């Protein structure tokens, strides 16, 4: 499976990763090699095999809808890059 430059640019955009121009050939090469490795999966016929979702066939545990955690806004916002009036600041998104 060989990727080209535009594939890598598209994937980097999907993953919201800024990749510098000069690094793109390296990623193109390495990601293509990894997909070649992954392509070995195609050699096996898996029709009729149930996909495995959990090693122990467990199902999602549910709990009662009760408040169990206390508000820790201050502690959590102390580590944020930018906050104001208890809100997280990001560049303007609505004109």
């Amino acid at each position, binding site marked *: 499976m060989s990727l080209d430059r535009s594939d890598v640019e598209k994937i980097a955009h999907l993953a*919201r990763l800024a990749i510098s121009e000069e690094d793109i050939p390296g990623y193109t090469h390495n990601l293509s090699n*990894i*997909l070649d*490795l992954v392509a070995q999966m195609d050699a*096996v016929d*898996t029709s009729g*095999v149930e996909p*495995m979702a*959990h090693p122990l066939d467990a199902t999602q545990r549910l709990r009662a809808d009760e408040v169990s955690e206390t508000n820790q806004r201050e*502690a959590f916002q102390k580590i944020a890059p930018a906050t104001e009036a208890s809100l997280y600041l990001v560049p303007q998104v609505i004109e």
Partner: protein
Amino acid sequence: MHNKTIAELSAGLKNGDFSSEELTRSFLARIEKLDPQVNSYISVTTDEALSQAREADKRIAAGNASALTGVPIAQKDIFCTNGVKTSSGSKMLDKFIAPYDATVVSKFNQAGAVMLGKTNMDEFAMGSSNETSFYGPVKNPWDLTAVPGGSSGGSAAAVAARLAPGATGTDTGGSIRQPAALCGITGIKPTYGRVSRYGMIAFASSLDQAGPMERTSEDCALMLNAMAGFDERDSTSVEKDVPDYTASLNDDLKGLKIGLPREYFGEGLDSEVAKVIEASIEEYKKQGAEIVEISLPNTGLAVPTYYVVAPAECSSNLSRMDGVRFGHRCDNPADLEDLYKRSRGEGFGAEVKRRIMIGAYALSAGYYDAYYLKAQKLRQLISDDFKKAFEQVDVIMGPTSPTTAFNLGEKSDDPVTMYLSDIYTIAVNLAGLPGMSVPAGFVGQRPVGLQIIGNYFEEARLLNVAHKFQQASDWHQRAPENFSD
């Protein structure tokens, strides 16, 4: 004191041979003197450690100590520690002070253990050599030109160099067992769900599992006693009683059925490593175990399958690192997309970016069936191989890693070659089984690990099987020359 096991230190503390403060100071002094050669710690928490040690001494004096009270340990820097930097080996979290404790950390705190610091690791646990860490590679204490393995390379090197009597690790595709093997120590990855993942920075949630890394199986049992158990804060934690893992350590191995998968002894296995593994199997025969040749026919598919499942889950898990609520944020973002892209582009290293991109690709529109769904089906086949094998045998044995520790830089430019070094460990994670690595000998001066794989929740049996080997061998007692005194 640094050559004593946790079991010996625990007895010494209770006897009053030394205080936890003395013990802690002696390890802190060793770390200060010797760790610059190894780079096994990202943070050393001197003040916190001494205050925990003094608390532990009071608790011992009051007569309500647990087996780990006053024992110094190191935590892999993937576990959140309240008020202490928790980096996961990444520039992204270089300034991240965790606002809460991981369940594993709380459990050790309750047991009265002393945290010496946080150990180095591959960035977000993605790597097999500890070379992807933002804080620089860890060196193997047996040979400073070799890698310690990864991703729990800092924990393995710290224990091997006697810079901690024990440490925690996490294992998503071999990250406890492979560094344990390459550094000549003992480590166990429990059954998926046995130890809480709460507060353990997620890499691939359906594979991640925490476990202990020590010099002996007995010490692993003591540590696992403290770590294991149900946690309502982890949605995949298993509600099942935890046995006392030390209780069955000495059980007789007569009649134990050991399966040797022929796929683990074929092409790709270093012939000198093979000899060491065969010699350790001989010891088990001497103890009355029965050897059965088995087959795990889908072994070769484990690495390709893993490199879909793990990247897909990591691309989803790491989407939270967006420069908004915590972690690295780029300067002067032009708009929201620029904020996301540059914060992530600057904060993540190359290997993490590769895996995020593979995952994003595999999960993107039109590719889901061909990649993630296909991989989950193969995962079922790989798991079925083990199910069949465990109808015939009690444990499975083989090498942990196809070679001894490779040289620093040897594989760091070639991801696929690096991935293949986990060929014997990855299938265990895909199946969710417990696995262990035990020191089995050396090739030259580099250690070899014997892998022991058990059926679900058979940790006690693995620890027993490893302990009986260690009663009859001294590989686990060897110390790297520059770190023995």
